[in-house]
């Protein structure tokens, strides 16, 4: 993912091979339908979303205060807090701790932030074996792939593909029965849970008043990760904070409904420090790594609202672009609408300048976002920033320059219109549609047709109408859809 070209080529690739990501589109639509049903069955949903949005806004405007309170409480509970400016600092803290405690094996519960900082690479380089325990992440790790969805990482794989993978990597007889595949994964991972020295989790929410970390799973792997190993280490983005237990309750009410359509995930686990005196189980050590990694500058800029995100995945599921190209084509850890904002916001434009353009601005993401983030607005802001930073492709800059020159001069505009009417009629087939535009416009017709301009322009038609004629124009091409295409 080193240049702008690769994003376009990944999209080309995705469109040319729909079989590779079709399950993602199907799965996303199924999640979206479940969310709709859950919202319809919960009359308080809209009020809860408003409440959640106000909680996020309130917290972020006092983030320094709440982070300080949270850190004090974690220490009061007997835990340790480390503030990491970037991915390198966070990874170093974890690997140093692992080395100091003689950790050989670390069991992990699904965490997007550890994907963001590529913690698994750092652990492997330090001689620690990281083992993913979420079933989907376990499959991804076996296949050495990346997640295609933030809550359903293995959505791109069919059961047959998982069956073949297990047969190859785990040396078991082939089966494509999810029940059987699950049984195999459970028994292997149970052994890992009982022998791992360190448990690593992300953090869905952190509660400032009690120094607690909330983890939401359906499988129960976060509970095991925070119970059987002797060290528990949490990696959290610094924006994960909520002030109180009551605020956390509001977040729980909207998270699962937005994500999977469940009323509540099976396990909403909240851990507050290491095991206490008299307790029979739980880790002896509890560490929290609070990660900045570009978040503070996002907070002070035009994209601050993206930090409201609670990582439910609803915007991915509702997005027509995500449904069409799947999660991998984005190339970023966070795909879909939220990824198009978060990725350039946290990492800078670098290779990500084109991501904000991969949107139709239809607003479906804003519609479903549990905390009502105005993602289309943020995408426009990013496009503007990209343009100002000189990240607009040359063809677009030249094209817009020509259009601007024409639009500022009525005679030029009329001339251009006439020329286009003639040219497009010449190129169009009998049905009024162009299947192949000449370069440099050929890209448009790679995947769709372009309509010939109507014989009568809108301006002429409007002029006639204003004169009292009032009849519809007679332009006969390019109106409505193309029949039979």
């Amino acid at each position, binding site marked *: 993912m080193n240049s702008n070209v690769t994003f376009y080529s990944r999209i080309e690739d995705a469109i040319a091979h729909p079989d590779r990501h079709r*399950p993602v589109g199907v*799965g996303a639509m199924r*999640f979206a339908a479940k969310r709709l049903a859950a919202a319809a069955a919960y009359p308080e949903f809209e009020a809860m979303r408003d409440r959640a949005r*106000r909680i996020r*806004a309130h917290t*972020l405007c*006092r983030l*320094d205060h709440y*982070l*300080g309170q949270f850190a004090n409480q974690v220490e009061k*509970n007997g835990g340790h*807090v480390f503030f990491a400016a970037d991915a390198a600092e966070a990874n170093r803290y974890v690997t140093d701790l692992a080395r100091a405690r003689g950790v050989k094996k670390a069991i992990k519960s699904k965490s997007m932030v550890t994907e963001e900082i590529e913690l698994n690479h750092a652990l492997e380089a330090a001689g620690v074996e990281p083992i993913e325990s*979420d079933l*989907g992440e376990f499959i991804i790790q076996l296949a050495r792939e990346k997640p295609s969805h933030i809550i*359903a990482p*293995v*959505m791109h*794989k069919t*059961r047959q593909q998982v069956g073949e993978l297990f047969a190859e990597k785990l040396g078991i007889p082939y089966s494509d029965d*999810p029940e059987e595949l*699950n049984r195999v994964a*459970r028994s292997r*991972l*149970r052994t890992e849970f*009982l022998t791992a020295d360190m448990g690593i989790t992300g953090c869905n929410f952190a*509660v400032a008043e009690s120094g*607690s970390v909330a983890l939401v799973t*359906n*499988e*129960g792997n976060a*509970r095991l990760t925070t119970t*059987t190993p*002797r060290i528990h280490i949490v990696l959290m983005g*610094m924006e994960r904070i909520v002030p109180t237990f*009551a605020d956390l*309750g*509001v977040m729980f009410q909207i998270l699962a409904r937005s994500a*999977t359509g*469940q*009323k*509540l995930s*099976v*396990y909403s*686990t*909240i*851990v*507050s420090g290491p095991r*206490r005196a008299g*307790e*029979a*189980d*739980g880790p002896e050590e509890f560490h929290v790594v*609070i990660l*900045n990694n570009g978040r*503070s500058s996002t*907070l*002070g*800029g035009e994209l*601050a*609202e993206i930090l409201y995100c609670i990582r439910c995945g609803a915007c991915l599921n509702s997005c027509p672009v995500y449904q069409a190209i799947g999660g991998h084509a984005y190339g970023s850890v966070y795909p879909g609408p939220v990824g198009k904002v978060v990725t350039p916001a946290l990492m800078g434009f670098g290779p990500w300048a084109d991501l904000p353009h991969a949107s139709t601005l239809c607003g479906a993401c804003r519609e479903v976002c549990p905390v009502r983030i105005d993602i289309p607005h943020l995408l426009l802001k990013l496009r503007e920033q990209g343009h100002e930073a000189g990240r607009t492709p040359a063809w677009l800059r030249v094209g817009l320059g020509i259009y601007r020159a024409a639009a500022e001069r009525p005679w030029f505009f009329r001339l251009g219109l006439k020329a286009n009417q003639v040219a497009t009629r010449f190129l169009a087939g009998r049905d009024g549609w162009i299947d192949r535009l000449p370069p440099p416009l050929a890209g448009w017709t790679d995947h769709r047709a372009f309509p010939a301009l109507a014989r009568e322009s809108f301006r002429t038609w409007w002029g006639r109408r204003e004169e009292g004629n009032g009849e519809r124009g007679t332009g006969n091409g390019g109106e409505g859809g193309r029949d039979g295409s």
Partner: protein
Amino acid sequence: MDRESFLAQVRRQVGRAVLPEAAGEREVFDPGPAAGEGLVARFAAELEAVSGRCHVVDGIDSAWETLLALCEEIAVREYLAWDDPFLPLPDLNRRLHERGFNRGENELPVDEAARQAAQEQLAGAQIGITGALGGLAETGSVALHCGPGRGRLASLLPPVHVALLRADQLFPTMAHFIQAHPAALQEASSFVFITGPSRTADIEQTLTLGVHGPKNLHVILIQQTGEG
């Protein structure tokens, strides 16, 4: 990075942040009266909807019979449990012992070698018995506040989890529960709302029960005779 510089950096950006909804007073969210009609029926229906089993029983004796029947169903005699003071059935562990059941060692030792041996022994238990701090009717959830005498493993390692709950511990919603137990997080190093048995849908969104946690969740909901 040291804490002061990190927080100072955040503070500078907080000063620039433009987040309109952040202005104004913090609202106090009042979920309304906690007592309600039909909590037991709602709880039972919601729990069954997420593949859990709810046994509504009248009084201690029927609760004991229901529990014993669940234990007898499982051929293995090893079980894990919370200590008696935290269970609504008096002398539960002693009575199970009299029936030939062995309570597994709950302790996960601090020493590394002993710890692994203990974990392997713990893994043999087939049923885990716990109490609960409360139940949520809206979602069919049970709230467990793990701590001394209330281990985490009993509700986590065995394939069957039985939670014992009194009907007067039910709340309409999570907000009501939190209002009644505002300090629950400070009091437990590990707290959990459990809503149904462990599940996954990671492979082609096909629902499968019992991934890492218990495959079967039973709640024995104890009403005092005459209670509705």
